[in-house]
């Protein structure tokens, strides 16, 4: 037995209370991890959004289109903007599944030749890509979407248009795999030409936005400015920024919720501290006579304090460990997979970041030490004789 051993053994004074406290700490850690993972997943799009890919939209509002001819400034037909390496365009289609209309997923009508050159983080097997390019009604879908609706290559699917009303028929020609964390794995991509040729004349030749890649991420801001300057004198002006910046702006709408969640996660830890501190304090009160004996034997007040704090930290780590033990399968296999597959548009990536796990454990130990601080301090103030005299 050692001093450290004695500290750890002390939790055995009241097993029921120790177990309950460990459980309480575990629940607190579990909640903390869940909340922070949610915040992280939400911010992943902003964090991992492409910095070297720009989006050019209608300055007034992204809901309004751009004239198709603007694209000619990007691909060299009417001039080339310096720094742009590839460019493509897309329209938000806003279609829904024919029967499962409640299940939202993103669908786009895109420029056949250039789209996947710009969006290289959506990887399509070359044979499927070729097949898609041949088929006017072809569609390429994300792996998560394929799983969600049980669609396979070769299937005929119909989408119901909302912005472009009517029933639109497609053939699934390929499935893409996301190579980056922030990519929505539930998208539906088809040919812009197919959309355009089926529109009434007054709605034709309008594109939703232009996406372009720049030669270096550091030049993103400069190139964005150059693009917007190009169209400044036109009737329809543009607003260009990197994808990451655009995601951040979007995220701004959720900032209040994220802020609230942040606060909640911290308060949970504080409450955990309270419960833990209470438990330790109760233990100290009960063991006053024991501490008296230890002091009589020659142990110093700092030893007693160390015992108390050590006990708190032990319980904190046990609870933290247990909480993580539950969190991992619950989130990685359960909740995370569910969200990624069924709400892939909102949560393309839902996994516990290692920093969160480490932070949780570290917090558990640190807060436990702080929580045990006051009882520990009180214990150092014990008078030997009074402590010995106190009835067990």
């Amino acid at each position, binding site marked *: *037995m050692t001093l450290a051993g004695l500290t750890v053994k002390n939790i055995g004074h009241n097993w029921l209370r120790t177990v309950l406290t460990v459980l309480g700490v575990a629940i607190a850690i579990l909640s903390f991890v869940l909340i922070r993972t949610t915040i992280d997943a939400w911010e992943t799009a902003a964090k991992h959004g492409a910095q070297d890919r720009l989006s050019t939209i209608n300055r007034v509002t992204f809901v309004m289109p751009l004239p198709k001819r603007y694209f000619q400034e990007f691909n060299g037909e009417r001039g080339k903007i310096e720094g742009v390496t590839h460019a493509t365009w897309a329209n938000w289609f806003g279609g829904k599944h024919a029967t499962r209309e409640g299940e939202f997923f993103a669908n786009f009508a895109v420029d056949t030749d250039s789209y996947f050159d710009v969006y290289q983080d959506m990887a399509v097997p070359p044979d499927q890509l070729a097949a898609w390019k041949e088929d006017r009604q072809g569609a390429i879908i994300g792996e998560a979407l394929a799983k969600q609706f049980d669609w396979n290559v070769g299937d005929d699917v119909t989408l119901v248009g909302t912005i472009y009303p009517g029933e639109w028929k497609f053939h699934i020609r390929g499935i893409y795999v996301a190579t980056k964390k922030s990519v929505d794995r539930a998208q539906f991509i088809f040919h812009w030409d197919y959309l355009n040729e089926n529109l009434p004349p007054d709605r034709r030749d309008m594109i939703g936005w232009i996406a372009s890649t720049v030669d270096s991420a550091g030049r993103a801001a400069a190139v964005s400015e150059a693009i917007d300057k190009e169209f400044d004198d036109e009737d329809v002006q543009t607003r260009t920024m990197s994808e990451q910046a655009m995601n951040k702006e979007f995220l701004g709408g959720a900032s209040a919720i994220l802020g609230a969640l942040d606060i909640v996660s911290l308060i949970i830890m504080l409450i955990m501290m309270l419960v833990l501190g209470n438990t330790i304090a109760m233990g100290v009160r009960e063991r006053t*006579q024991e501490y008296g004996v230890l002091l*009589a*034997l*020659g*142990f110093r007040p700092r030893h007693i304090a160390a015992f108390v704090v050590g006990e708190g930290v032990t319980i904190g780590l046990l609870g933290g460990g247990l909480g993580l033990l539950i969190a991992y399968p619950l989130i990685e296999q359960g909740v995370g997979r569910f969200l990624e597959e069924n709400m892939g548009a909102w949560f393309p990536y839902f996994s516990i970041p290692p920093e969160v796990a480490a932070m949780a454990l570290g917090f558990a130990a640190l807060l436990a030490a702080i929580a045990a601080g006051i009882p520990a301090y009180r214990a150092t103030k014990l008078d030997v004789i009074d402590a010995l005299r106190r009835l067990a």
Partner: protein
Amino acid sequence: MSEATAERSDAKKPAKTARPIIECRGITRTFWRAKERLDVLDGLDLDIAEGSFEALMGPSGSGKTTLLNLIAGLDRPTAGKLVVAGTEVSAMGDAALARWRSQTIGFVFQHFNLIPVLTALENVELPLLLTKLPASERKKRAQIALRVVGLEDRMHHRPQQLSGGQEQRVGIARAIVHDPKIIVADEPTGELDRHSADDVLALLEKLNTEFDKTILMVTHDPAAAARATIVHKLDKGRLT
């Protein structure tokens, strides 16, 4: 305690030195309870010879436990000089007193005061945690101490699994494991039945006669007092 000390019990003992191991001169201990002044001990003088087995008796409030606490280094006198085992404890600071206690005094308590989450062996080891001895050595000495009190076969039992008498004997083992010069016992038989009390008292006697431990005991029990060579009676803070 070490093997050497345990073996010495069989050898012939040298004559006891005449030098008192405990010297009290003009010991006064005053307490203040809500503005009221209590002189629990008032100018007390007492000498206790090394190797003796002495008892302190007296009615409640006579100051016997207070005196014991002072001699054991748990408390400091308000006035007077106290020299125990060659050290002037009345002048020592808290840290020094703690260290001195851990080397010089062995405690036997009325309520046994064993730590319930530890086994008998681990309880006995406790005082040795304050030394620099390695774990294996600590364990060995604890075992020997338990052997002396006749409980080696119960060393892995927890206090809940022991009878009152056995618990007290473990307490005694804890009191001798670090080979202190003086054993201080506060009502050691207070919680015991007659039979266990006799066992414990016989043990204390053995420690005194075979192991040369000076024993100072506070007691109400006349049978316990009978075992001591000298009985000091206190009343209202003075020896009578």
